[in-house]
């Protein structure tokens, strides 16, 4: 394979994983903007999406077209339960206790997943078969195209939601100033619940569309979750294009790094970037330092 072909290959696979990171990062950003909480359990929603789908297809024998929406709904229910049981009862908790609670929630969900399923790695068949396609000298799976399509649709929809619907605008108002928002009659607590619903649905969708490429197991949530967080940090915690761009940058850097430097240290790339951004530009790459995010 020529070097240019190799680079296109890395670019495409980088975009695909980057799109996944973007979806997860958006989930982080949406909850953060509504509540000021970094939800450490975000990665577990990704894991649940993949695992529910595997179970529904292989054990319950459902058609993927039915199994996928069901998996998203089931994960969203977990998201709602988590908000109701762990987040809502805490009225004036310190950031430290909130960190500890969401971490506790995250390992609890992971532990229960291990109990309900097992410790094995599960494969999910590609949505449109596993026959590779060749584009510009790069070999792609049909699943890559699914990832691109689904991500574009989801991001477009969330853009429309936040710009044009009453609920979306209300959620944005909460993120600017939740006290002012409650004074003009916005039910802030409901918006917090909405944010958990949206981000658990987005997270599970990300977990479902990536599962055919990377396989899934009860413990995939932590790694992929932090990478999504990294995308959101690069994007300055915006629930819009900043995070999407952040995800794509991270995805491409990671796949280039794995291909050209060392695949063993691939995972470290995201964490080094995460630390560098937090140290040097905690407001994200594309933003002026307007609000204190740290």
């Amino acid at each position, binding site marked *: 394979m020529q070097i240019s072909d190799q680079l296109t290959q890395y670019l495409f696979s980088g975009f695909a994983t980057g799109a996944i990171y973007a979806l997860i990062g958006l989930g982080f950003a949406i909850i953060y903007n509504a509540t000021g909480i970094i939800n450490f359990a975000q990665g577990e929603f990704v894991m649940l999406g993949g695992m529910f789908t595997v179970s529904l297809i292989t054990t319950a024998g459902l058609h993927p077209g039915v199994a996928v929406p069901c998996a998203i709904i089931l994960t969203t229910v977990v998201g709602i339960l988590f908000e109701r049981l762990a987040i809502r009862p805490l009225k004036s908790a310190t950031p430290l206790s909130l960190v500890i609670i969401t971490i506790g929630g995250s*390992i609890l969900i*992971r532990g229960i997943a291990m*109990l309900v399923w097992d410790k094995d790695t599960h494969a999910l068949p590609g949505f449109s078969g596993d026959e590779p396609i060749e584009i510009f000298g790069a070999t792609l799976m049909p699943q890559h195209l699914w990832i691109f399509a689904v991500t574009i649709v989801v991001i477009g929809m969330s853009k429309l939601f936040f710009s044009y619907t009453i609920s979306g605008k209300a959620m944005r108002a909460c993120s600017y100033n939740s006290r002012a928002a409650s004074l003009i009659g916005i039910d802030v607590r409901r918006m917090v619940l909405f944010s958990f619903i949206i981000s658990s649905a987005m997270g599970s969708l990300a977990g479902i569309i990536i599962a055919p490429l990377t396989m899934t197991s009860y413990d995939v949530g932590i790694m992929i979750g932090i990478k999504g967080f990294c995308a959101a940090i690069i994007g300055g915690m915006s629930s819009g294009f900043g995070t999407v761009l952040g995800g794509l940058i991270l995805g491409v850097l990671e796949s280039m790094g794995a291909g050209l430097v060392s695949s063993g*240290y691939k995972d470290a790339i995201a964490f080094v970037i995460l630390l560098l951004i937090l140290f040097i530009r905690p407001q994200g790459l594309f933003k002026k330092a307007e609000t204190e995010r740290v």
Partner: protein
Amino acid sequence: MKRELLKFLILAIVVAILPALLSGSYLVNVLIFVGIHTMLAVALNLLLGFAGQISLGHAGFFGLGAYASAILTTTYGINPWLAMVAAAVAVSLLAFAIGFPILKLKGHYLAMATLGLGIIFFIIFNEAVDLTGGPSGFSGIPNLKIGSITFDNDLKNYALIWLFTLVTVLLSLNLANSRIGRALRAIHDSEVAARVMGVNSRLLKVQIFALSAGISTLAGSLYAHTMGFISPTSFGFNFSIELITMVIIGGLGSIYGSLIGAFILTILPEALRTFQDYDIIIYGLILILMTMFLPGGLVRGVPGLLARLRPAGRQEG
């Protein structure tokens, strides 16, 4: 102060006579782990409980100590005591350097950054196969020696580990009751207020981070020499969470609480062998429930709870 000293003396006496009661049983081995975990939990508590700064990467420092000792003594034949001191100093300096940028972050961001740091260390332990032996581990680490005494059985190791643990506890108690301890608690309550009162909060946070990392490194070195074999899984994210859980159970800012937390979380899996794999669920539950209902931990929470129950009981009677 006298009461503090008395409490510590009681602890020291209990530590001294316990092995006599349990002689020969594998429980001595379990208590060695309680000692190592106590060192780690106390170290983390200095940072988390006193200064109010979270670290999700402390297992990484523990691992750095273990690997540094293993590599320096086994691969390069350096004296274990020298290697131990070198590792603790080097990692403290490293933590001091990282501390400045990392402790500028607060709350959730600090948690994520330290988590990232811990995972970077974990990846290095796994991937630097030439140095660390990679996922299959590092074996053949020599026992520690003083003169003609080699620390090669449970009883000797128990004495060694608990000597270090007691010194750590004593120093931490001293630190907690000093000017520095009060300044740290001030930072915990309100960093702005502490700074207004003339506390150099930035430097102090970094110093306590370095100290905490240094103690964890020391615990790692001791662990490596006691076990003779180490592998990356002992130093992963789950262990960082376990350490946080120990601190939370005992109570933030309580040194004896960390000892109790370390004791409970080390004994529990031994007592209930069946839930080997499921201990992580228990930790998750403990973290959530303790933070919600008993934020002071067992040491401060239980007396408070009893005090609340007692008057109610009398009214009924």
